[in-house]
């Protein structure tokens, strides 16, 4: 067991965990932030995407202990003060989620992407979105919502 601190959503969390414990599990179990979901644990589905120093990363491919000197952002930080962000609002309005299990990973991926690419084309959005699996929506409304959020911000 190791004791270490993590900076998650601007708060310090003291964690006692085995060095092999995945960031996804530490966030969910030790930090009690269950909005980050786990769909495959082998880096394919994208459900566990969080931001590490502002860049999207798969929490199931990282050990928590490696993340001590980094800023971690999870879905719980996106709706500041309980008000959904622009992308979340667009997903709501465009019916871009059904079961919602993949949603956090998609929001985190595009929170980062849209900052750097504020005017993506549909093709670019689909290309980036291909790193997140969604079994419910057929992606069409997610793509529409991302484009809508980009326009709203522009």
């Amino acid at each position, binding site marked *: 067991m190791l004791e270490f601190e993590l900076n998650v959503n601007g708060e310090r969390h003291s964690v006692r965990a085995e060095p092999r414990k995945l960031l996804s599990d530490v966030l969910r179990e030790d930090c009690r932030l269950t*909005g980050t979901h786990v769909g495959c644990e082998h880096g394919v589905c994208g459900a566990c995407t969080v931001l590490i120093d502002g860049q999207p990363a798969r929490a199931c491919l990282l050990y928590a202990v490696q993340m001590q000197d980094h800023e971690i952002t999870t879905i719980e930080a996106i709706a500041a003060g*309980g008000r959904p962000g622009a992308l979340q609002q667009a997903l*709501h309005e465009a019916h871009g989620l059904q079961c919602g299990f993949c949603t956090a990973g998609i929001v985190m991926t595009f929170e980062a992407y849209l900052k750097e690419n504020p005017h993506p084309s549909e093709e670019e959005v689909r290309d980036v979105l291909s790193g*997140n699996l969604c079994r*419910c*929506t*057929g992606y069409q409304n997610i793509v529409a919502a991302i484009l809508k959020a980009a326009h709203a911000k522009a």
Partner: protein
Amino acid sequence: MPKPRFRHIGAALPRKEDLRLLTGHGRYVDDIEIPGALHACFVRSPHPHARIAGIDTKAALSMPGVFAVFTGKDLAQWTTPLRMAPPIEGLHPVEMTTLPVDKVRFHGDPVACVIATSRYLAEDAAEQVEADYEALPAVADFDQALAPGAPLVDESVPSNLVSRQAFTTGEVAARKREAHRVVECTFSQQRMTHLPVETRGCAAVWDEGRRHLTLHIGSQVPHPLRTQVAARMRLSESQVTISSLDVGGGFGQKIALYREELTVAAASRQLKRPVRWREDRMENLLAASHAREDRCRTRAAVTKEGRLLGLELQIEEDFGAYCFYPANYLARVVAMILTGPYKVRDYAFEVKVALTNKCGNGPMRAPMAITSWVMEGTMDAIARELALDPLEVRRLNMVEPGELPYAMPTGEVIADITPRETLEAAVKAIDYAGFRARQAAARREGRYLGLGLCSVVESTTYGSRFYKAAGIPGSGHEAAWLRIEPSGAVNASVGLGPTGQGYETAFAQVVAEGLGVEPASVRVHMGNTDVAPYGMGSRGARGGTAGSATLFLCARDANEKVLAIAAKMLGFDSPEGLRMVDGRVEREVLGERIETGIALAQIARTAYLDPTALPAGMAPGLDFSKTYDPPPMTYSNAAHACEVELDPETGALRILRYFVAEDCGTVLNPFVVEGQQHGAIAMGLSGALLEHMRYDEHAQNITGSLADYLVATATDLPRFEILAMHTPSRGNPVGTKGMAEGGVMGSIGAIANAVNDALAPFGVIADRQPLSPDYLRSLLRSK
């Protein structure tokens, strides 16, 4: 579309469930915190078929954090076996214990369960459980299963042919003799799995003092699941609560009570500690539930104009090793509804289902998925062999509006459907008339386009009379309650198990409509068996039909009592001329609507807190319940049209355009319906193009990760263009017909037909899925 008869039903309201899911506050099974919970991990067989000579648990038990290791022998004492023995002719009864005792039957079969203080420690210990196997020869597919001398997957069944049914009506042999041509074709659909992004999992909490089990689990069918859990643990149904809050997709995988879940529940009771389990993706691929893997052959007797005189169908399905459902249940529906919108009287089918050493099959979104591909592929084959236009062959054989209701040769009655209208709309949208010229021009440039059509008649909702006729125990009814609380708040519930279909929103609209309130003031509770009434859950497409009808009728009862009270409060003898709109009572006087000044909150207060002011003889409170049994079968319909481009060098396909014209009756919420259409078409295309659960010739599963089991991503799928052509059903109080599986049926057929159209100049036919680049190239190379 006819003019709307509803105020709230049909409104495009964004979903009530979204906010919590978007902000990371959903409550999926693994998000529920349970203090003191132990973690389960299963030891699984590496062999497809083997005797269990012994299981040594000593090393595992001595590891840190390990509480227990349970095997099939332990579970056999604490739980009863699952016996599947409906009285269906040609179906052999089968039985399975909770965990295998004597032998394992597929690669991934669970043989022991380790319980430890963390999932990590449980996994470590599972690796130290020494199971001693004596390998047996295995059967890896349908043909091996039926070969003479094949090893028996289940020794209690005389052969691996676990089910065989045949049916004939009319004189198919005579029709074949009279026919201008008998067109024969084959269709082979691969093995797949549901792949919800949330894998299976559960958390069992046994309360020793109350002798009560709470099972947190993502379930499509909370009440039928409770019945199973209670019976198999020898508990009464009042000792078990199923709680299913948010569920990360089901698609048919979250219906059955799986052996792992029952093991976890029994372990919690034995250890008197909460026990939880979340399977990893490899387990989900290997051992949750598989689907499909069926081969079909049709023989169509036709005139030289392409008119269908008689039809034969053979289905062979590889069902895997264990039966969580009657083995004939999925394939037989295909045979029952095959002819869909087409007219034919003389029809025969034979359905054979074999056990093999693979993970057991279950219903996956559109259990009858292959139906439309087979029928529409047959239509295309007729056109091809007779050099006719495939659209004309369809037009010639399709039932006319004036011929409805029409009895299919199996006796299934289609009514209130519009297959001609949707077909014509789809071909117009995709410019069928201009396509051949575009296709010819493209070919001159060395590009290969193809256009595929697929009409769908979707069996959405099974009534009790259907089950009775099929010999399957069970009911098709649904149940609901509605309570208006003293403050006027409206709570309602229905026995369905939501997995993303937006029920909380769409059903609030239905209740609002029936009662006369705003949808915002209605809260629909589902998924907890102590709260919801005993309903049959979510399967097929029964939510929008059976579920909405039950809630609507229940809300109408409530509306009647509310208005009776309002009449008394206003000093009228009868509620005639009164109605409630958005929670306020109005009165109609000479065609004008006048506010009465009475609101639902006042009525509710009277009903609960001042019952002596109620009409004479009326009981206090505003508490209603209702059950409803839908017609034996409800059908909706659609036509799919898709255009593809095939690269003959690489075998790669690009979907250029995709249209669906659909009639699912009254739409509760167009957002939700379109979302279901997208999702279903995507699942169909994903399967038709990519997905393939593969076993090698020794029945070893070689598809253990998402790198091997490919599913469609955002770049694989086109934009879907939807033509809404909804006409209300007369057989349902709300007018809904159901939908959400037909998209799978239609897209599988449309893409296959489009690919064969593109392949036509090469003289080859693709009759197998997935339509992978490898497969298409192999066809082209054969030329």
